[in-house]
């Protein structure tokens, strides 16, 4: 009995620690003048009155979409190929994919400046100076998470047999990839894409240090001038990300019921 009481008290304490700061975000963004003043949605309404902010929102959404598509296009064919034809390279690919977890983003940024000087130099006129070039490094940053998601998906199906069957029926590699493998791992692809979106929308380190303005950078800059609005954006973004990741945890938790590998792999995902 007493253990249950202790347990309940502890859960409440943990809950308070995690929920109070989140609640405070919402509280602050709806605050009038002083704690006792009536609540107002003024700051939330003002979000779209700041052109630099709306621009940054658009940029970050574009980055999120392009990053997740590019990641899938780079990773899925490589991982399928490795499983089918280049087994000895599997370890290398895994190592490289998980490497960004060990090398802090801030370290990558330090070495990235010269690389990005070339990227800017080589990119076509319209893209010069655009924050969209961040895609190149964002793909690297999301690699570990996308890799794990896709790896779980591919382990759950028999890639070799599927590919052989399709090939022997005359399918080309593009057909195998897009019409045979991809539909079979669609929940894994969705996982990987959602994770990429969530990470891209939250990215601050690389953008701010390479002097590009994405959503997080804009929010952080705005905090100096108008704390209320920037906290409102932060709260909105938080809600959006939570929703995204909750969708993901619902999908990620299930996986494909038919597979043996998923349950074991689900842990690490």
């Amino acid at each position: 009995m007493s253990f249950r009481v202790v347990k309940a008290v502890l859960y409440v304490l943990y809950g308070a620690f995690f929920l109070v700061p989140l609640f405070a975000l919402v509280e602050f963004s709806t605050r009038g003048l002083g704690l006792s003043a009536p609540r107002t949605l003024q700051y939330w309404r003002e979000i779209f009155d700041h052109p630099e902010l709306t621009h940054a929102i658009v940029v970050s959404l574009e980055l999120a979409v392009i990053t997740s598509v590019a990641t899938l296009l780079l990773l899925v064919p490589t991982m399928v190929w490795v499983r089918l034809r280049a087994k000895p390279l599997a370890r290398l690919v895994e190592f490289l994919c998980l490497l960004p977890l060990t090398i802090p983003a801030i370290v990558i940024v330090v070495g990235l400046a010269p690389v990005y000087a070339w990227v800017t130099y080589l990119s076509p006129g319209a893209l010069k100076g655009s924050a969209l070039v961040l895609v190149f490094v964002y793909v690297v940053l999301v690699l570990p998470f996308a890799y794990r998601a896709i790896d779980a998906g591919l382990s759950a199906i028999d890639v070799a047999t599927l590919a052989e069957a399709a090939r022997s029926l005359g399918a080309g590699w593009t057909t195998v990839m897009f019409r045979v493998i991809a539909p079979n791992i669609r929940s894994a692809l969705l996982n990987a894409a959602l994770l990429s979106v969530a990470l891209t929308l939250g990215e601050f380190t690389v953008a701010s240090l390479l002097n590009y303005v994405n959503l997080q950078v804009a929010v952080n800059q705005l905090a100096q001038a108008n704390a209320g609005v920037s906290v409102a954006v932060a709260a909105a973004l938080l809600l959006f990300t939570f929703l995204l990741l909750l969708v993901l945890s619902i999908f990620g938790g299930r996986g494909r019921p038919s597979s043996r590998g998923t349950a074991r792999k689900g842990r690490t995902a």
Partner: protein
Amino acid sequence: MSTLPVATTAAGPVGSEHDGEVRGGRSGWSGRRPSPAWLGVVPFLAYVGVFLLLPTTIVVIGAFGDVDNRPTLENLRALSQDYVVRAFVNSVVVSATSAVLGAVLGALLAYLVVTGRPDGAVRRTVTSASGVLAQFGGVTLAFAFIVTLGNQGLVTLLLEDNGVGVDSAWLYRVPGLVLVYTYFQIPLMVLVFLPALDGIRPQWREAATNLGGTTWDYWRHVGVPILTPPFLGATLLLFANAFSAYATGAALITQGGIIVPLQIRTALTSEVVLGQENVGKALALGMVVVVTVVMTLYALLQRRTARWLR
């Protein structure tokens, strides 16, 4: 956003059951199509080479070069300056404290969860919330704590209304960083440690009881020894996680270089001292060395863990 591997058990390459048959069936094919197998991996390797390995190499080489790329140890000497040493000490203190706090509190939370119903709503809530909150960091997290405990923060104002004056300056120093980092360390610990607790078999407890052991004996001779390697491993992971975090600290502390990542920010953005750029590389190299050592120890402990818990 800073996140490190939530690799709970050393999951080897998956799908290995198929290895044999695949290679057997494949040999006929490769005769028809003579393209070398590694050719398909070239785009990936090229990409990772340019955007991951090249920057890292530039950091390592740059740390040993001066402005004109002549080899020098000058940058490394800069690492022994007072303010740099202080930043490294602060970084280690922040990371170690938040790792230990996160590990203890996270392990306790995981224990609470494990003693509950395995399919209960509590467990599902805690694990999904942990999955979300462990990823949660950066500007938003810093804001959340500023509007909670800062000068105009909710808790600060509530305390003031009740006659308790609080000076919130501590939030922007080492103790503040520790508190804010703990916010994402606890959930990460839950994610990493829960599988270890799940791996404890009830039979071990029963065996201990059958042999006349008390609860204390069980924990003293079975539970704690088995859980020590995963606990230490998770603590190291948390340390590396905090050590490489940048965004949260940068949004919380807008000026100065209290910890190494913020010191790197100063080195990258300061226009006062020319040639600081390569000092930034030396700082980055220092971070890589620390994180690599910690992650190697982590990998070793993982291997030790796998002996009992799989």
